[in-house]
């Protein structure tokens, strides 16, 4: 599932991770004003009095953002409930208003869960609506915050609608942390709530990491790791942080509760703001915005339009096949699961359908491949009428031109090669190449392998690739044993 094997924690330690994911909603406009939700434009071009909190400006919440937030909440199995916006007060130039409008004690969605591919469940504590902040650039001092001569601020991103999804600290392995993020991304894409591009910042993951002795249920001091911009970084950052904590405990010290920044190039995290003096944001209810109170009908309407989510789509295959979970996940991720399912229902072998799609239909447009065509092709392969190589060639043509696999096979000259025909061919080759045959039957392992390649190559050449490689190997083996 992962490209590199996950390093296990030293014996006796267990990982405790909770993830906070900020998701940018795919609305046309910002959360509280009609400025474009678009911050790659020239700086400060999508900004109005609401964005920078000029006196007298009044926010009005974007109906689409509220709908997206509720849709995501329901997709995560949350209770969608009455909510109010709140002001989180802080002084930093990325928010000209000196507060961020967010939700505090009454968020839109609470108490959901997310099921991972292997059946593990991670609780969702809450998913709340909030606005994004502007972007600061530090000038002078090599761009480092503390040495900067001054800072420049672009408010195009200020007021962009976000949902922050907060998991419970239920994650116990790095693989699960990665799987959680990729599952959440799949849900965001399926519900069309966000384009969920981690590298571009439309999905931002912060990890709360702590460790504890195995068997304990305590929650020890955690550190919040920010600046993680890929799923791979997430794994590295969690591993680094967990080992750092274990080292500290091992030398009789303890981690401090703090925010740390992941440095991908350096492969380490560096301390940021300390959380020792407890955050005091003096939250209060936003007086300029009235409460949101979705009716049962509104929530029911959202439920009715939710797509079948990736977990459910994967589950449709589970009882029908024995291929790996990764194969199923790939087919679902590419949106080829309906085609696969229909072909299986039309009688084609489930495992073959899924592996052929995974390996030989990794293309953007497969619309010419009909359910009947795919099912017929896989059935021909299963019946031994086509070799693996031939099946791939027919599938490639089906995808590029459409049509009937039987007709394509005939057109390509793929007549089924009877195995007694192969037998005759092998006998002929053995007679023509006695020295090679001798090395095949009585040589060492290296010779044997080389000669197997030699004979197989000759047979493939003679049959223009139509022979079934496995059948050839079987015949060679049988003849060698005498």
């Amino acid at each position, binding site marked *: 599932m992962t490209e590199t094997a996950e390093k296990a924690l030293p014996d006796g330690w267990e990982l405790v991770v909770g993830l906070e994911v900020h998701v940018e909603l795919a*609305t*046309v*406009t910002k959360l509280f*004003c*009609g*400025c*474009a939700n678009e911050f790659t434009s*020239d*700086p*400060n*071009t*999508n*900004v*109005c*009095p609401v964005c*920078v909190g*000029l006196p007298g400006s009044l926010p*009005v*919440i*974007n*109906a*689409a953002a509220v709908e997206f937030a509720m849709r995501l909440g329901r997709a995560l199995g949350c209770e969608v409930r*009455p909510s*109010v916006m709140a002001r989180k*007060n*802080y*002084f*930093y*130039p990325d928010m*000209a208003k000196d507060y961020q409008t967010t939700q505090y004690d*009454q968020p839109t969605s609470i108490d959901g869960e997310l099921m991972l591919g292997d059946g593990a469940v991670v609780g969702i504590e809450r998913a709340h609506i909030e606005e994004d*902040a502007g972007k*600061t*650039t*530090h000038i*002078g001092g090599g761009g480092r*915050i*503390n040495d*900067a*001569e*001054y*800072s*420049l*601020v*672009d*408010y195009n991103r200020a007021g962009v609608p976000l949902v922050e999804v907060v998991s419970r600290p239920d994650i116990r392995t790095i693989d699960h942390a990665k799987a959680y993020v990729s599952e959440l991304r799949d849900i965001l894409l399926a519900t069309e709530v966000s384009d969920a591009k981690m590298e571009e910042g439309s999905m931002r993951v912060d990890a709360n990491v702590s460790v504890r002795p195995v068997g304990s249920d305590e929650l020890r001091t955690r550190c919040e790791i920010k600046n993680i911009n890929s799923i791979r970084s997430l794994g590295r950052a969690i591993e680094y942080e967990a080992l750092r904590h274990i080292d500290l405990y091992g030398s009789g010290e303890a981690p401090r509760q703090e*925010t740390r920044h992941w440095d991908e190039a350096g492969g380490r995290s560096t301390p*940021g*703001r300390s959380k020792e003096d407890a*955050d*005091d*944001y*003096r939250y209060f*209810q936003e007086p300029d*915005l*009235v*409460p*949101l*109170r*979705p009716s049962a009908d509104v929530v029911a309407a959202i439920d009715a339009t939710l797509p079948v989510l990736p977990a459910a789509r994967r589950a449709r295959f589970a009882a029908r096949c024995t291929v790996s979970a990764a194969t199923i996940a790939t087919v679902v991720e590419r949106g080829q699961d309906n085609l696969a399912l229909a072909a299986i229902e039309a009688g084609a072998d489930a495992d073959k359908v899924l592996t052929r799609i995974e390996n030989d239909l990794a293309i953007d447009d497969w619309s010419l491949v009909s359910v009947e065509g795919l099912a017929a092709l896989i059935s021909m392969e299963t019946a031994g009428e086509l070799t693996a190589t031939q099946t791939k060639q027919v599938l490639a043509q089906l995808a590029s031109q459409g049509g009937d696999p039987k007709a394509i096979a005939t057109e390509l000259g793929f007549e089924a090669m009877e195995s007694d025909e192969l037998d005759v061919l092998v006998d002929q080759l053995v007679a023509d190449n006695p020295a090679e045959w001798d090395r095949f039957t009585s040589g060492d392992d290296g010779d044997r392998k080389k000669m197997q390649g030699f004979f197989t190559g000759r047979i493939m050449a003679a049959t223009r690739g139509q022979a079934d490689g496995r059948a050839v190997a079987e015949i060679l083996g049988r003849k060698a044993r005498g």
Partner: protein
Amino acid sequence: MSERITRDDVVHVARLARLQLSEAEIDRFTEQLGDVLDHAEDVESLDVGDIPPTAHPLPLVNVTRPDELVESLDRFELLAQAPFAEDGHFRVPPVLGEQP
């Protein structure tokens, strides 16, 4: 008096709000904020058991706007509101530390 709000509370809140207060102001605001809290306490003594809690004085919920573009401010006009601007950006004094 002193139990409703202390001088230390006022100093703390002033620090959070980035307000610099003189000793005399701290005394005066301790007194005034105390009066405000006294008033809240008076209200608290009313029996409101039958009244549901409200988040807002207006009898309104679900006030939203359609997701439609409205023209933004002209950047020249926007940046003219700021003491300093540079290169299409607001220019601010060096930021100490990171975003809270």
